[in-house]
């Protein structure tokens, strides 16, 4: 059976106006896949993700999400299909955690306040944070903030979920629980995940495929299953990455 392409990058130059960060990257992400973006710090993972979620236009090349290009007419439709967790969490500081998770539900569904609240509580329970519901983001820890942000990204059952370093700052137990949550959501709802992470354990547990970028070569240097990359790649950087720095 032909796999449905959710995200398609063709010869994309990623970066900011006047600053090319990565050149000529091409890959597809398929429906129901857990796709990992890998690479050293500052190599442009968040940049590529910002292109995919329509915040910055690509410098050149072709980027399609769910078959559509980002533009004025498709923006509303595409925004409903994606859920994003930013590297910093990006919770709204003037709202409690519960209100943060409730915001997209209230804005985009016609449910009554009570129903929205219950749905938001359920999401917070999924990330084991029902106790923090009434706290402000400034009153909880960095790891907790990330988990609230993940709950918010999942709020509208998006087709594609983008997570920028979801497990950075989480203890191994919570991080493993997060991996289980991702696998569960994929199995139940067929969600597609694009995740930036450096956790090798997590990568081997959940990833279907990864793309690796290198800052010095300004290019995508590897694409494939994590096991294949670890054992079969000839590239010195890829080898070092998967062997934690040793050759």
């Amino acid at each position: 059976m032909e796999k449905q392409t959710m995200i398609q990058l063709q010869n994309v130059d990623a970066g900011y106006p006047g600053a090319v960060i990565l050149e000529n990257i091409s890959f597809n992400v398929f429906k129901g896949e857990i796709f990992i973006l890998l690479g050293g710090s500052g190599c442009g993972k968040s940049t590529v993700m910002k292109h995919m979620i329509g915040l910055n236009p690509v410098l050149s090349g072709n980027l399609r999400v769910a078959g559509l290009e980002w533009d004025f007419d498709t923006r509303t439709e595409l925004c409903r299909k994606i859920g994003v967790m930013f590297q910093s969490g990006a919770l709204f500081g003037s709202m409690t955690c519960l209100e943060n998770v409730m915001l997209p539900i209230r804005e985009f569904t016609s449910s009554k306040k009570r129903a929205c609240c219950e749905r938001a509580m359920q999401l917070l329970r999924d990330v084991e944070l029902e106790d923090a519901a009434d706290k402000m983001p400034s009153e909880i820890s960095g790891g907790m903030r990330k988990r609230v942000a993940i709950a918010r990204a999942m709020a509208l059952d998006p087709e594609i979920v983008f997570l920028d370093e979801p497990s950075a700052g989480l203890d191994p137990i919570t991080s493993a629980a997060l991996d289980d949550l991702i696998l569960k959501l994929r199995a139940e709802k067929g969600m597609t995940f694009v995740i930036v992470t450096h956790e090798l354990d997590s990568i081997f547990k959940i990833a279907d495929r990864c793309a690796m970028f290198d800052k010095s070569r300004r290019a995508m240097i590897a694409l494939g299953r994590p096991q294949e990359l670890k054992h079969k790649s000839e590239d010195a950087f890829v080898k070092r990455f998967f062997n934690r720095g040793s050759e």
Partner: protein
Amino acid sequence: MISPFSFVGSKVAGACRSCADVCAYIGESVCAFGGILFHPSRFRAGDFFLAFQRAAFDGLVITSGIGLLLGLILAFESAAALRMFGAEVYVSDLLAIGLFRELGPLVTAIVLAGRSGSAFAAEIGTMKVDEELDALTTMGLSPVRFLVPPRVAAAVLAMPILTVFAELAGLAGGAGVLSLMGVPFEVFVEHVTDSTGLFAVVFGLVKGALFGLAIGMVGCYAGMRAKSTADAVGVAATSAVVSGIVSIALIDGLLAVLCYICGV
């Protein structure tokens, strides 16, 4: 070395881009307000009350204080000149006209630009640095629709209230000075009521509301266009105050010309 042509060209192109950007922002804000007229539930009342409290109530003391000082200073300075003609009592007329038509709203607006305009810019600028605006955008919510109306409404409503307090405090200051010079309070009140009609008072308050609109819009704009660097929030706040005061002066000038043409 860059040639003078390319220098001028890039400056002009930059200015055109900024103009287009400002127009887009104003258009989007108008749409946001229009949307609220049709769907009042979209208005973020919580944000509004918080901004209003900070702008109006927390600013009462300082605005009244400055109004009082302004009244004192105006009265002293003008009394010195008018006394030569034995016309100290006309200080009250001067004060009333000056405060209600011009100085009350103007001084209040400058204080509001410093307090609330910069606060809006800093608040929204911090949200920008923390990627909160990006988060709104990816949720399909327009940051302008979400953030601008409550703050602008707060500034527009706070201005007339603060203006009234500044004006009353200014009059009180003037009355104090005049009583020192032997002008009885009743005479002062009589002169004030005779010299200012309802029009002057309402005109001053409407002008104040317009200033509030400008301060709110400029403050939010500065925040939204903040860069994502560490010093960006400070830069945004500064530019909100400077541009706020410039836009107040522009509006005031326009209204003065308009009044002159209409003969009021």
